[in-house]
């Protein structure tokens, strides 16, 4: 999906935060650490989740959500433009399920 399309889907798009902004915000709360350290911390967290999923492990973060890997079997797909049959290899896809507390926080007192 293109970025423009993704933005159009968020009704009342309330802005966004990218990784560097996340790092800056955490750095602001930790004046005793270098921004470089915070960057390494954020990357270590994301890297560890990625590595776990690559091993086929599950990552469960209580109050936030759980990442897991789902396997999709090989199938015969169609090229929607030409209608030609194409074989699609089996693959694994990452999956995220929102945690209970997170779900509640998204919906309290809006």
């Amino acid at each position: 999906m293109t970025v423009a399309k993704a933005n159009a889907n968020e009704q009342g798009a309330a802005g966004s935060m990218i990784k560097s902004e996340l790092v800056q915000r955490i750095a602001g709360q930790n004046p005793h650490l270098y921004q470089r350290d915070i960057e390494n911390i954020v990357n270590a967290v994301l890297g560890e989740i990625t590595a776990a999923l690559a091993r086929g492990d599950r990552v469960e973060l209580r109050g936030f959500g759980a990442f897991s890997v789902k396997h999709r079997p090989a199938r015969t797909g169609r090229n929607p433009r030409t209608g030609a049959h194409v074989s699609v290899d089996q693959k694994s896809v990452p999956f995220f399920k929102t945690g209970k507390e997170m779900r509640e926080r998204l919906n309290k007192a809006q």
Partner: protein
Amino acid sequence: MAGKTVTRADLCEAVYQKVGLSRTESATLVEMVLKEITDCLERGETVKLSSFGSFVVRKKGQRIGRNPKTGKEVPISPRRVMVFKPSAILKQRINAGPDGSSQQAP
């Protein structure tokens, strides 16, 4: 191969190994990372983490659902849900397997 569950403790250990802070401080920082992301999403903002993926909050309107046990129709109230869109890089890593080689059998 699969079956293990990675938790906060493992993330803290990874930070401790890679960054050289104390274990206590590593744990605090991991918590801060999750809290910042959560707070942002709670405000309805998208969180984009390059080479990992993005978390998006979607608004759902009211719709009619059905109680699967009784078969009774019940209205489902409007709500906000959070979805994770994995980046192409993450999807690629998962299909490449732990050692980066291409993995045919799961």
